[in-house]
């Protein structure tokens, strides 16, 4: 859509019953059905899910292609008999999809074009077109030819609404007006065009697949297969100078269940040994059930990886990270990603919020704390309450007591007034006197402290003193 309006990408059955439809602007949809639940569309995730579904379909045919955005093509030549015929295959497939809550329609035809059209525009959920049977296409709308939206519109304006209308017109007259594209699509659907029978091969992807006539079920076999697949996959990655940050192994069992195991790397990886080592602890828990018939290994988040020239340039931070990466990977895969971190700057005026945790190998940021703000070397996680004596309204204290000891103050600087981050507080509690007045003070012994007072002079809040940190 050319405009910027947000539109519905998909609706469920209930929404459709309420009159909502894909392509509708969200404003219109909300007006029709104010209680509708909106979930942000994730076309990339959809694409990934479709890819996963295509993987799953490998159990029906070795030749599967993703037909984005919402289709999967299978070349079932020579496969149907395994399922007891074409019709049985289609039904078995839909049943299994339904078991996974995936609504689907299927069509089997001579040509890819015809199957595409019948699956989408056919009257039934399953259409099996007999050999050379083009009559089934006749009543379908011209859009079933997978043609340009504008061409379809034009055809409709001329009253040429169905494929039957088109076939009744002289081809030359159509070609003259709508070009070769329409003719090709028509010919492909009708199976007249040579090229129409050539099946599209799936695009090259970073996936390796092992299919077993005799399902495997021992842990050793599982581990060996993963290593085998890793060898093949890493060789392929190596050929292109690539590595991956994530590897997915999928174990398709005879009973239709699929078990997955994932490993992650901090830096792009294609080392067979390391990959196998990272997988090893995770494979123990794979339950082969009655046996695994297909195993796939996929590399995800693929990135360029060249061999770093170690040792020559020690200062090179990339090289240093590469050295550290195997260690970090092991820690992360053992303890979990959330337990391994590095501290970095977070922009906040509130001292305890000025630091945050990031992934261990994240490059250092350029952000810095402002230098004009004195911050202690040691910041207490929780400020310690103290007793202090000071002159109102905002003079520094001249005496304070902490852990039973009195500190007489010789030098002081401040106050630095820091207000609470109002957006983190309940709005009703957002009083303007929720502030801290910080002082950097030095006692007679020369020790330096960071104190603050809450409760402004003249406000309802009682004045209280806290110690928040120690300077060197």
């Amino acid at each position, binding site marked *: 859509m050319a405009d910027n309006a947000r539109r519905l990408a998909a609706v469920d059955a209930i929404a459709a019953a309420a009159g909502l439809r894909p392509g509708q602007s969200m404003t219109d949809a909300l007006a029709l059905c104010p209680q509708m639940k909106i979930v942000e569309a994730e076309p990339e995730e959809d694409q990934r899910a479709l890819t996963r579904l295509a993987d799953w379909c490998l159990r029906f045919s070795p030749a599967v292609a993703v037909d984005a955005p919402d289709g999967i093509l299978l070349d079932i030549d020579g496969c149907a008999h395994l399922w007891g015929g074409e019709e049985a295959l289609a039904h078995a497939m839909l049943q299994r999809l339904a078991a996974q809550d995936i609504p689907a329609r299927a069509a089997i035809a001579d040509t890819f074009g015809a199957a595409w059209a019948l699956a989408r525009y056919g009257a039934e959920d399953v259409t099996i077109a007999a050999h050379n049977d083009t009559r089934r296409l006749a009543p379908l709308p011209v859009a079933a030819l997978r043609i340009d939206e504008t061409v379809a519109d034009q055809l409709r304006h001329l009253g040429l609404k169905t494929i039957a209308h088109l076939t009744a017109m002289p081809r030359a007259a159509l070609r003259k007006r709508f070009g070769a594209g329409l003719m090709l699509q028509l010919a492909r659907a009708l199976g007249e065009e040579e090229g129409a029978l050539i099946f599209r091969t799936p695009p090259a992807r970073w996936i390796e697949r092992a299919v077993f006539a005799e399902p495997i079920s021992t842990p050793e076999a599982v581990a060996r297969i993963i290593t085998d697949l890793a060898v093949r996959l890493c060789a392929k990655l190596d050929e292109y100078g690539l590595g991956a940050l994530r590897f997915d192994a999928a174990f398709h069992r005879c009973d239709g269940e699929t078990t997955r195991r994932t490993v992650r790397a901090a830096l792009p990886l294609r080392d067979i040994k390391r990959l196998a080592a990272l997988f090893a602890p995770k494979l123990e828990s794979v339950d082969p059930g009655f046996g695994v018939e297909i195993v796939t290994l996929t590399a995800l988040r693929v990135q360029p990886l060249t061999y770093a020239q170690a040792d020559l340039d020690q200062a090179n931070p990339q090289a240093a990270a590469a050295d550290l990466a195997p260690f970090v990977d092991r820690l992360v895969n053992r303890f979990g990603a959330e337990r391994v971190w590095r501290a970095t700057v977070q*922009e906040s005026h509130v001292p305890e919020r000025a630091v945050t945790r990031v992934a261990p190998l994240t490059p250092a940021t350029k952000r810095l704390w402002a230098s004009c703000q004195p911050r202690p070397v040691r910041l207490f996680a929780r400020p310690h309450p103290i007793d202090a004596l000071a002159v109102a309204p905002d003079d520094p204290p001249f005496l304070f007591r902490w852990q039973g000891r009195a500190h007489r103050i010789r030098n002081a600087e401040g106050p630095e007034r820091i207000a609470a981050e109002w957006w983190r507080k309940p709005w009703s509690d957002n009083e303007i006197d929720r502030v801290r007045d910080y002082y950097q003070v030095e006692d007679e012994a020369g020790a330096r402290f960071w104190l603050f007072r809450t409760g402004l002079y003249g406000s309802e809040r009682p004045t209280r003193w806290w110690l928040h940190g120690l300077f060197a």
Partner: protein
Amino acid sequence: MNACTYAELNVTSNFSFLLGASHARELVETAKALGLSAISVTDRNTLSGIVRAHAAAKENNLRFLVGARLDFICGAPSLLCFPKDRAAYGRLTKLLSIGQLRTKKGECELRYADILEHGEGQVFVVLPPAQLDFQDFNAWLARIAADFPGSVYLSASRLYGARDLKRLHQLSALAREAGVPMVATGDVLYHHPGRRPLQDVLTCIREKCTIAEAGFKLEANAERHLKSPREMARLFAAHPDAIARTMEIAERCAFSLDELRYEYPNEPVPPGKTPQKHLEDLTWAGAAWRYPKGAPDKVRTQLRKELDFIAERDIPQYFLTVHDIVRWARDPSTKENGKAILCQGRGSAANSAVCYCLGVTAVDPTETKLLFERFLSKERSEPPDIDVDFEHERREEVIQYIYARYGRHRAAICATVIHYRQRSAIRDVCKAMGLTEDVSAALANTVWGSWGGQSAGGAMPDTHVRQAGLDPANAEVRRAVDLANQLLGFPRHLSQHVGGFVLTQNRLDETVPIGNAAMEDRTFLEWDKDDIDTLGLMKVDVLALGMLTCISRAFALMRAHHETPHEDIAEIPAEDKAVYDMLSKGDSVGVFQVESRAQMSMLPRLKPETFYDLVIEVAIVRPGPIQGGMVHPYLRRRNKEEPVVYPAPSPTHGPADELEGILGRTLGVPLFQEQAMAIAITAAGFSSEQANGLRRAMATFRGDGNMPKYRDLFIQGMARRGYAPDFAQRCYSQIEGFGSYGFPESHAASFAKLVYVSAWLKHHYPDVFCAALLNSQPMGFYQPAQLVRDAREHGVEVRAPDVRFSDWDCTLESAETGKLKAVRLGLRLVRGLGQSEAQKLIAARGAGALTPQDIARKAGLARGVLERIAEADAFRSERLDRRTALWRASALKGERTLERDAPLLAYIATGEPQDDALPPMRLSEHVAEDYRTISLSLKKHPCSFFRRALHARGVFQAAELEEDRMINGRRVRVAGLVLNRQRPGTAKNVMFATLEDESGIANLVFW
């Protein structure tokens, strides 16, 4: 307690967009309450907020310093600049104009070098950067001090940073070293610390980030508010001089905006004549032209009275300038196309006898009840106000004339302040708070523009929040709504006013900064209409009105086809009973102003019989009278169902008939804006200054949050003088309702003239009226489909667009019968067809080309263009229906032009099938295509195709609703095309819609 005095010199208001978080008025009022001796508003490179600050300060009796903060692009530190006198002020505005004209709209590029030329007579306060880079800043400070000896100060502020005192000490040392005295400033961003959240949100909007990401872009605390002199003295206890110097600067800079006087242009006055004499000569000459049999005595007396008043106020140039523009517009000899431009003035001064004689308005003062009376009697110190409407397509010519006559240095369009409205406020706040678009859209969409205005303070009520499916108690939603409410009414940016010209005798850029507009070659000054009014500068609104275009076209068509002589509005015969009879039936589709559903239902109740009834008709169906509950009392009194009585004060407070003079014309019911204002003065005891303040507060929708104050003044004022509180409340509600939709009597009178003229055209020449309306689209309330339907119902034959007969515009053709002509729809109705393409077609048609192939070849039109014409079914005269024509057109090659050689041969050679091989098109399909391509169908009404199905469902036709068997309270079903939907802000949660079917229309109310 020692009396401390302090003037705040460093104040950023919300006219530094997305930076300052308080209105000028809030700042001024807080300063007054805190006991400051003076205040300035120093916005960033702009003076756009100073007039309202000046006015607020004047009202609060607080000294106001004109100033601005200058930010440079060359690395120089920012300066506060305060002009000492008028001349220095002119240099400041000039400087800002230079900076603004240098760059694109809304920005200002200043370099230090610029102030060297314009710095004379200014006092500068240098603002040190947040991080003191000593070498660099030292050098700048020394340089500025040397360039403007004795006029430079160094600012120091206490913002509660960690090293505040150290910094203060450093600055004081720097100041001593450079010989520049240090002065204390508050560096204020808001009037009260409670505005910190809003200021943070503004920062997020400005920096396009969410509050969670904003980090160090936000202030650490809420200290950038106005502080009391005592608090400032405490913070600068070690530097009392720095406090005292604020007063020193305030005393040195004595310039006040009151010194800007009106300086009307002198152009129209011939040499050797005084402006007054010239105006009198023109007026009497005009009187002889308007009243060929001699002006009645009443008019002569009135003219003399008005001229005396104009002399006394010394404003003859104002009238002469307006006259000059109008005279030029009416003179065909000065126009390229040799056609005069229709125009009409309105506004408080426009409906005077003088303006009638000068030709500024066509409203004969004898027809109305002499409105100038009020303009005369009101001793307002404001300049007169005249708006002039021109034909909308020709206004640009008038604007070019004004530029040519007065020069761009003396004429410029004033600004319109674009304010945050409900929707924009909630959207921006939600974005800054990191709320999802869904929450934001849900909140923004429920408001529908009806939130605000009506409810007190304009805040979003909880019911709206609940309507959005959100919980008003939810903390995040509550916070967003509260902040949005605060943001409401904040200026967002300046835009060019539609046509408000300010003209001066001397250079305009020495009065107000001028900047670039978004439109090329346009400049506008940074004050809005109210600012101009406040200061009393000369302003004329040059506006565009579609109805004038329509009337002008109608006159031309009448001259060509009906041989009538009319050329001007004033020539249309007045008080034609047949015209009033038509209007009284509610037959007003296409008529100016009274064609809306609400007006249509009012007409039969009001039954206008005279011109003044039309004035009332125009004004009564407006938010003001409706909200004030004035409509029904007026109608009852008019129909003699209720006695005409005048509310009176208690006898001790004034004469019982004090309102009779104000409300006599409207049977004791206040209907016009002037009446509401007069009531404020007479009955509520407002001073004229207070009344002006009320009028301003009214006009700027919640603009400065001042309405509640006037509300109390008004209602208590009336109650104190013994009026019924109920009447006071209703008068006030009406004033609120006027808001920005104010409809003064003087405007209503000018509009009523156009109501009458357009109704006259509709009654006598419906054919002409229909064609003229269609040719002036888009305008008015109805779509071409309804205008055509209405014309057909009035006996006009309407013919479809056709390649053989249609021009670009709709034209008149001779009809078989009757005195009316037939309307031939123009090619302008064909969607997607451009005028230049249509002209090529018309030229090719002259050369005999009428088939798609011939036209494509001879006119050099692309296949797509021919397809659009074919889809509009415009080849009927060639015996090609739309599908066949489209089939032929689609065979044309895709290129823009075809080769010279024989498309006809190609046509035969490719074995083209017979056209009738295409599936035939049903009538219903044709009608649907008609609507798609020309937005109407002459073939049949689309509902007729569904009639059987609708009938089976028990749906009634619109016409059946009028039948006797329809009794009140009966449930019926209706169906039809939705002509319009309205959800007026005045009708709480009520929506109106109009459905149309083949039999007529049905009006629906939803609640």
